[in-house]
């Protein structure tokens, strides 16, 4: 049994729980994007950052991967945490300005515009990789992954062509936190066959 406080509330956790697990168990909300219960946490999006205070020192950690420890003092919506989240959201708004989900989350934190350059106004993907983790860990098909590196990184099947490994279960579409997978899905599964006439495939 580990005793810690989250937002001043005394909570108990078991070894093996993460800070996010503990907070959610006690009904304390932490926003997440790249986290999904069906797969291993990844810590990509950093939306779930929380502040750990030790005396007058404090640091920020990703709660989805940080294990609960005895005596931790955790703050999930302190000024510092909210500042970081606002920065992240502003950056996400420039990266994927077309995502309604990201816009809504940003608006909750009072972020409505971005000071960063928008390169593609139609982009929705935040490259969190949740789709590919679900495909590998839940479906076990490993049909999609992130392709390319750096600014050229994107989500798709190998060579960005439809793949036989995809079973078109749509789990990636369902878990996608930004709605970006919807437009990419056809490029992975291939379009459904349409029969035009007898014998014409």
């Amino acid at each position, binding site marked *: 049994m580990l005793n810690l406080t989250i937002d001043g509330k005394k909570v108990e956790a078991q070894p093996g729980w993460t800070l996010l697990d503990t907070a959610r168990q006690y009904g304390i*909300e932490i926003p997440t994007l790249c986290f999904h219960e*069906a797969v291993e946490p990844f810590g990509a999006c950093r939306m779930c950052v929380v502040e750990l205070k030790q005396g007058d020192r404090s640091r920020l950690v990703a709660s989805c991967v940080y294990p609960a420890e005895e005596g931790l003092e955790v703050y999930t919506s302190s000024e510092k945490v909210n500042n970081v989240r606002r920065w992240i959201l502003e950056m996400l708004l420039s990266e994927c300005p077309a995502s309604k989900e990201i816009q809504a989350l940003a608006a909750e934190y009072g972020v409505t515009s971005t000071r960063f350059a928008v390169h593609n106004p139609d982009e929705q993907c935040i490259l969190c990789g949740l789709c590919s983790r679900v495909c590998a860990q839940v479906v076990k*098909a490993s049909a999609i992954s992130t392709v390319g590196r750096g600014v050229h990184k994107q989500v798709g099947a190998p060579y960005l062509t439809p793949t*036989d490994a995809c079973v078109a*279960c749509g789990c990636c*579409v369902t878990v996608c936190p930004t709605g970006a997978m919807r437009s990419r899905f056809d490029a992975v599964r291939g379009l*459904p066959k*349409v*029969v035009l*006439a007898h014998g014409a495939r």
Partner: protein
Amino acid sequence: MDNGNGCKIGVFLCECGRRIAPLVDLKGLQAKLAADPEVAYAAIEPFTCLTPGLATLRQAVSDNGLTRVVVAGCEARILLKKLENELVPAGLEEGQVDMVNLRDHVAQVSDLSPEEKAAKGFKLIKSAVSGLQALTPTVHEKVEFKGPVMVLGGGIATYSAAQELSRRGIDSVLAVSTDEWEDEIRMLHEHYPGERHYYGRLQEIMKEVDASPHIRRITVGELTSLTGRTGNYQVTFSDPLGGPPRMYEASAAIACLDGQMLNQGSNFGHDGRNVICHTEAEEMMWTLGVPEGKVLFWINDYEAGHPEYAYLSSRAAWSMARYMRSRSPLTQVTILYNHQMSIPLSTGERAASRQLGIAWVPYDGSLRPTVQTGYVTYCDPVSHVESEMPWDKLILSPRRSVGHEALKVAAVLGLEHVEGHFLEQHKQRVRPEMVGRAETILAGSARYPCDLHEALRQGRRAAAGVAEMAAKAARGELYAPRMICVVDASKCIGCGLCKEICDCGGIEPVEGPGGNIPRHVDPMVCTGGGTCAAACPYHALTQLNNTTAQREARVAALAKELAADEVLAFGCAWGGLAAADNAGVKGLKYDPRLYMLRVSCIGQLDPSVMARAFLEGANGLLLIGCPPEDCHHSYGLDHTWSRVNLLKKLLALCGFDRRRIALAHADLNEPEEYIRTVEAFVSQVAELGPIERSQENLEKLRGLYSTVNNARVRWVLGASLRRPWEDVYPGNQRNALIFDRDFMGVLSEEFIRARVANLLSSEHRPFQLSELAAALKEDEAPVMESLREMVGEGIIGRMHKDGVAHYVLRS
């Protein structure tokens, strides 16, 4: 509390942060569930799926001795597997855990009050509870491997497959027609022309196979039968010398089949002497040596109607051209290719081609080149000028086909072959865990046209797949998937309907081909689509852990609870259900009167499940599958279409509106379209109003339920289902109207018979004809007709009282 069925069911409600708890009255729902006699335990958890929630879940299961669990939270498609895995240590197996999507089917998609949403959730949870109660858990079937792996068919991939097996330390038997591998190489060009550069490597493989202690080589005649299932096959061959047939035991069989090369027809000027095909050119080089003069390869696959083979043909042509030029400097070699294709050479090969002086000449494919004596006329794609290319030998691409030998073997193996196609099996698009034997056991160019390298690679891959299974089996870890079909041998009459409509090839006769032989299912091949089980006229096929009885229990529990304007729906996990999940995730709002149940394929729905829904109180039934021609189990949607038509006819016979049942399809990526589908149907059912539950109507509905379970009706329906070899729904049927008239005739006869039998069995007293007809509100003539038949069949007895015939059901 025990519900008398030996199982204790626990229900866990998820709060899911903001996504369920504030929108649904979970406390009220929990209280209602706790008061229900079928539910042994009900609890609310913040997040059942996270580490703390899972610990509580396991604790509650072991503390309360729960044997079934329903988690009402989110998508079963994504989280069910995790919950099942987490509950295995608590003693629950796959199938004993079910999920209700409270979040995306109830909480997020309507503006109902929390109490109304709780009521909706309650009905769905009750349905899941009833389904679990009807579950009979089965033992997880272990698959054992007995005997060596049989590599048969005689294709060249035999050697790479055997090499791979031997390297992995697995014993194999090679069934070949000749002992001398030099012979095989000598004749190989008939199947793989222009591969001479590869023969050295092939010989190495053959030498390794020859020396391997794991490999036994047998010389046999034709394959005559293959029976058994994965892990335990009996393979029979004819004796090459005319002796008695030879039988071998094998744990697995890999079929290596080479396709056949045919010559082009005379429309390309083929004469077998100067205008020849690749195989003939190769044969000529073996016997007469390299020809001198001008040799012209024309890659004419575009003109022959198969542009997809142009790559293979041009590679073969390049290989032969290289051989010719390096052996005979006096030979001039030109390769004429369609400008739509690119030259299939690597940079190094291009350099070699230039060095050898091989000319690659493109032509404009929109004008068909003409063969003349000594010249081929073609259009230059750059200058558009007509040009002529002189030749002494014109070498054409071959025509590729499966070949008679391969087809014979394929027929024995039960592999489907469609005219004009290769043997590549239709691959169901299902999750890897749903297929026990992921790798197809077929290798070689009869599977699909390929070169020698690819054929050998296929052999290695098939062998690797088999070897992995064998290694697992040796460790005792090879299990069949849990949700597969099994045949009840006592009910099976061996009609073979299931085998005909099965798309995964898992259903096999117990012994030998033909005749009324009971079938069995290869558990490692079955993908659990279940349309075979829904089609069986005698209910001899069942899907383990996912039975028709369970689905009937689910619809019965839900239909009883539904209000007059509410609609019961089934959504397949790949189409309708996934679209509903996505609509919820996106927070789209739609008509809350839809109650959706989950099936893994819409084709699993036996007509008796549909009939049961109406019998128990549903006024509308909507079935939502995958998009047409995109069914993940191949023909589930088409088969359901036929079944829905059956129900429509029967509803009309009962005097109800045919529109109360409908089949729809949804693309999971188009939740808006799914919503249009739902709203159209729900408003239609609301317009129709409820079915009046009068005695008369209930009697008719009971008759309807009995009729869909009637073997004769199911037989006629089964005959109309689309077969895997049929290109489009509804397949190559007889005259559609004649079939429909016959079907209608059978239905109206059996409907009356069923109602007569139901009436007689419920009243336990003799009836007169006039009484029966009056009770059923039918004319006397059809009732008399069925009575006469049923007396003839000995189902009911006839006695005379006061000179009037009375009828009574024989027990």
